[in-house]
């Protein structure tokens, strides 16, 4: 394009934009996000960004979204949140547990801005929390893991010992044990959400302990690659991780934040947003089960899908008594299910797990 015609087109476009401005009665609603990892982690943060894009797709010109990625949990999060608030974002999503106190601090300074904090438990008038019932998906993964292991040792790469992760370990173990009473659970804490090299090391340590199925609660695909090398099985975490199907990845637990994000952005637009604690699971579509590959025998696949359907219909709660805590004390009596509040603060292993939970 010649420079002159380029200038002319740009000018024309600018004119057009200027004249068409009054067509929008209001400024677009600005929505901000902070992610704990890079968008390209192909796991946790990637899925949140898919949700952000879903908001844009649903509301088009009425919203304007932006994000800051790889925000460390800690003081830096406060800076990032403040920046988003100062830029005029009216709804801000903080998408990691460790942002909790930063959100509370910044929210107190910006009462007109609404905050949404993922997986946390602190709320205020302008701070809502939302979470997904990952443990429902873990129950399905645990069932497959229990059936697929031949060494009867299942490994779990934990990130941080917080309720969200502990629920996942307990649920996986419980359901693996149901189908395979001899199963043992080995847990390694990586103390990071995202560090491919360390996650790979953690997988290697578990493999050295004779584990032949690994579940992970960290965000990169590095453990998948290690498992592939060792010829053992894994499950996709947060995102489908379909690049590793059909083996080692047998299935996956997918976080689908899009329905919730679209709903909440809509409530902001029509003025009905209110602070609440949302906790959605398989039934609402927040937790999805990725395709179960043909490495899994048909009857195991059917068993896993049947469990998923029972959870979705509400017929079965993954934590149904009788269940004891690790120390042998009673947690749930026969037929009892936990209240959401108790579950959200889960800080103990179930009976049968031999590892010690870091305090």
């Amino acid at each position, binding site marked *: 394009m010649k420079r002159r015609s380029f200038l002319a087109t740009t000018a024309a476009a600018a004119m057009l934009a200027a004249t068409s401005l009054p067509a929008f009665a209001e400024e677009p609603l600005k929505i901000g996000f902070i992610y704990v990892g890079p968008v*390209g982690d192909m796991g946790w943060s990637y899925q949140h960004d898919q949700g952000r894009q879903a908001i844009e797709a649903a509301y088009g010109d009425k919203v304007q979204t932006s994000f800051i990625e790889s925000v460390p949990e800690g003081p830096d999060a406060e800076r990032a949140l403040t920046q988003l608030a100062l830029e005029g974002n009216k709804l801000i999503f903080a998408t990691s547990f460790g942002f909790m106190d930063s959100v509370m601090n910044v929210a107190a300074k910006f009462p007109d801005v609404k905050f949404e904090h993922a997986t946390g438990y602190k709320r205020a008038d302008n701070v809502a929390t939302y979470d997904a019932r990952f443990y429902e998906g873990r129950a399905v993964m645990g069932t497959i893991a229990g059936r697929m292991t031949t060494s009867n040792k299942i490994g779990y790469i934990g990130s941080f010992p917080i309720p969200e992760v502990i629920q996942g370990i307990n649920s996986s173990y419980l359901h693996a044990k149901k189908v395979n009473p001899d199963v043992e659970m*080995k847990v390694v804490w990586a103390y990071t959400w995202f560090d*491919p090299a360390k996650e790979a090391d953690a997988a290697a340590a578990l493999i050295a302990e004779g584990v032949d199925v690994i579940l992970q609660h960290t965000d990169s695909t590095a453990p998948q690659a290690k498992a592939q090398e060792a010829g053992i099985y894994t499950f996709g975490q947060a995102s489908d991780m379909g690049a590793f199907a059909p083996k080692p990845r047998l299935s996956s637990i997918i976080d689908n934040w899009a329905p919730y994000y679209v709903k909440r952005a809509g409530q902001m637009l029509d003025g009905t947003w209110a602070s609440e604690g949302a906790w959605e699971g398989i039934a609402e579509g927040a937790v999805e089960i990725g395709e179960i590959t043909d490495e899994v025998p048909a009857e195991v696949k059917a068993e896993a899908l049947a469990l998923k359907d029972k959870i979705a219909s509400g017929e079965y709660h993954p934590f149904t008594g009788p269940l004891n805590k690790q120390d042998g004390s009673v947690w749930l009596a026969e037929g009892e299910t936990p209240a959401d509040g108790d579950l959200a603060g889960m800080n103990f292993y179930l009976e049968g797990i031999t*590892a010690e939970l870091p305090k």
Partner: protein
Amino acid sequence: MIGGIDIIALIATLMAASTPVLLAATGELIAEKSGVLNLGVEGMMIMGAVGGFAAAVATGNPVLGFVAGAFAGAALAMIFALLTQVFLSNQVATGLALTLFGLGLSALIGKGYEGIRPPPTAKLDFGPLSDIPGLGQIFFRHDWVVYLSLLLVAATWYFLRKTRGGLILRAVGENHDAAHALGYRVIAVRFAALAFGGAMAGLGGAYLSLVRVPQWTEGMTAGAGWIALAIVVFASWRAERVLIGAYLFGGITALQLQLQAAEYSIPVHLLSMAPYLITIIVLVILSAIHRHGVQAAPASLGRSFHASS
């Protein structure tokens, strides 16, 4: 097996696990010995990781990937050299900027490479040597880069200690004005040292993305470059101690995860802290023992040189 931990497997693991940091730290050692503090190791590593990965995927040849990774790291180092040596910018600020630049640029370049698997790097075949119980598994079952890294550490030690070139490099790092007065080309020596440092960091990054993880993920170095920088300082600028520091750090990192998996009743927090703590303690003890040859930082480290000054 000692106490449920397979020591032989552990040593074999730590050699591979420490290689990226070892390579980067050795490169940074040479750069700092020439008197330049390049804080951009993390940025050069990640450029090597993405450059090496892209080249290996495009050509299907992991060796070319490593070569490309080294070039990518060196290219970034040349930007740093140009800014700090010719335009005399502040080395600390430029180094930090280099890291940020490398992280951003690698993310941009790497967009199309997420979720792809690189061609495998073959392990060297030593025939019957690999089957020696214990020793075979520790020493003769690695990929060629692990041996190359050891060779490069030995070569670096030899170069710094025994050659005229090494003497010139150290002279430039200790007192650039004196070296200049003697007729050595300070800027040229530093360019070369930085290029070597960048290439080594790039090689380390490529090892991460091609062998250790192996795949490309944004921000995958996750601080390895900073560890390399720290190890150079703790090793008091000596090649053999860089090796000890890197292997110790990698070893304790691998060990603490295995201790967890073996369900030792040591608090996990203590274990996660251990790699940092023990590396510091051991290197402090080492430098205390070798008190007679106290070699602190090169005297001209971080100072800009201009022939007129």
